């Protein structure tokens, strides 16, 4: 296989195939009671069958995307002297988490058309097809969504956080926040040269609740009445115990 590729590389004028090989420090994250965020190491190498085909340096972009869900963005407006939520835009799907790590300034290493094609930067990941307002205004709402999520650490663009060694080896750490949503996190790795995507790969990190968290979540959804009664009983017992305890202390 390798000699065939080599043959092709030699035969074609601009062949020099470059592919990406990757690894993750962990492919599963368990959310336990004391979960307080975690760091995932994403690393890899560029596999070449021939010397680099051009003088342009190779660049790497890594994205980590959490499960998407519909979101409503509301805006307060000044009506009759009061600031009240007036207009809103509903977005079909916005990722609950989105981190972009790059090996350089994203404007320099990624062309607009490639960004549009692979939906790499944050604005392209928010689908606002079914927004309820006119397009010009809806833009502001989507920008606000991005700004709010950037502020609470859910959306991140870390330019230059991918370390690239000898145009071959690369690595980065992606920090998953403490307020993580359960689901499959899609990791995408892009190899770029001259603003164009040369190769890409996709991996998945499964984020799941575990232990007590799993148990309580399942109980709340599958046995909701029992769950409610247990919650209530807990309150009754605690209320009684505190009263009894106080009486005991006073004696």
């Amino acid at each position, binding site marked *: 296989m390798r000699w065939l590729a080599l043959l092709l590389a030699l035969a074609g004028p601009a062949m020099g195939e470059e592919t990406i090989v990757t690894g993750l420090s962990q492919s599963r994250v368990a959310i336990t009671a004391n979960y307080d965020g975690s760091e995932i190491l994403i690393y890899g190498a560029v596999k070449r069958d021939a010397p680099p085909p051009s003088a342009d340096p190779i660049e790497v972009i890594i994205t980590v995307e959490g499960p998407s869900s519909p979101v409503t963005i509301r805006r307060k407006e000044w009506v009759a002297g009061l600031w009240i*939520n007036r207009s809103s835009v509903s977005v079909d799907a916005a990722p609950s988490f989105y981190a972009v790590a790059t090996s350089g300034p994203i404007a320099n290493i990624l062309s607009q058309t490639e960004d549009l094609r692979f939906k790499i930067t944050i604005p392209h990941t928010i689908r606002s097809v079914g927004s309820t307002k006119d397009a010009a205004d809806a833009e502001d709402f989507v920008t606000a969504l991005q700004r709010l999520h950037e502020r609470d650490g859910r959306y991140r663009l870390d330019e230059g956080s991918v370390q690239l060694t000898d145009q071959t080896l690369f690595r980065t750490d992606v920090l998953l926040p403490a307020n993580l949503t359960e689901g499959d996190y899609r990791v995408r790795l892009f190899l770029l040269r001259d603003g164009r995507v040369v190769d890409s790969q996709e991996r998945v990190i499964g984020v799941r609740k575990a232990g007590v968290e799993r148990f309580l979540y399942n109980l709340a959804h599958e046995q909701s009445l029992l769950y409610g009664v247990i919650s209530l009983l807990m309150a009754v017992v605690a209320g009684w115990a505190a009263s009894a305890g106080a009486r005991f202390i006073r004696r």
Partner: protein
Amino acid sequence: MLQLYLPIAEVSVNALLILGLGGIVGFLSGMFGVGGGFLITPLLLFIGVPPGVAVATGANQVVASSISGVLAQLKRKAVDFPMGFVLLAGGMLGSWAGVKVFSYMTALGQVDLFVQLSYVLFLGLIGGLMFIESLRSLLRARSAGQAPIRRSHVHTWIHGLPFKMRFRASGLYISILPPLLVGALVGLLAGIMGVGGGFILVPAMIYVLGMPTKVVIGTSLFQIIFVTGFTTIVHAVNNHTVDMMLALLLIVGGVIGAQIGTVVGTKLKAEQLRILLAALVLSVAIKIAFDLLLQPDELYSLAAGVLP
């Protein structure tokens, strides 16, 4: 340190902070006989708990601190059970109607404004009236040294109504219609505003029904147990928004706070107790009023899901 991931709220919080929050609200609850729902919900929202979880879990916590408070009051025979049941009967009818109004306003899409305006209006009105009254009686007691006039012995048109009943603990012999109506009104507002209604019920019992302040606290708490217990179950079954882990922390803090609050409350004079509650209610009203009047830093806000 001591971070804890909440399974339903899906956020990581500081366990000690939650214990402290529960303790403060429990303290106020034990002292004034208010459930504290109007305090715990905004506080939980502030630390990043989603609104639905904050309301439902807050209700669960209020059950515990109210029970703790009622048991403490029970030893002083400061709970008027017949009155509590009459208020509860009215309250159930009222909250049913309140939930209907709430869904109607949700359909209109202005439920936030409606809730905020009712908060400002009722908290402001009740807090203001109570503040003026208790300040006046406090000054009168201080200047003349004479006991304030006992309202319960003043006969008004209320005493002319039919279906009279004796409320021994409150020292009242009145028609059950006013308490039933008070209960229904409080239930209506509680259903709309998503709170237990203690802060409305307590002043209403003092000023409208003429009950002695010491009995009011225990009786109000007794009624709140049922209202919030009912709310907890409804939220758990329909919305799955009760977070047991969060509730446990709030409860442990809350029941301890409630016991301390009860002890502090009995050391204070009735007028002092009323003026403090008035100040608390007023400050919440003022805070919400400012939120409505001043331009917020961030005009945009996010809500999960698609609004109707």
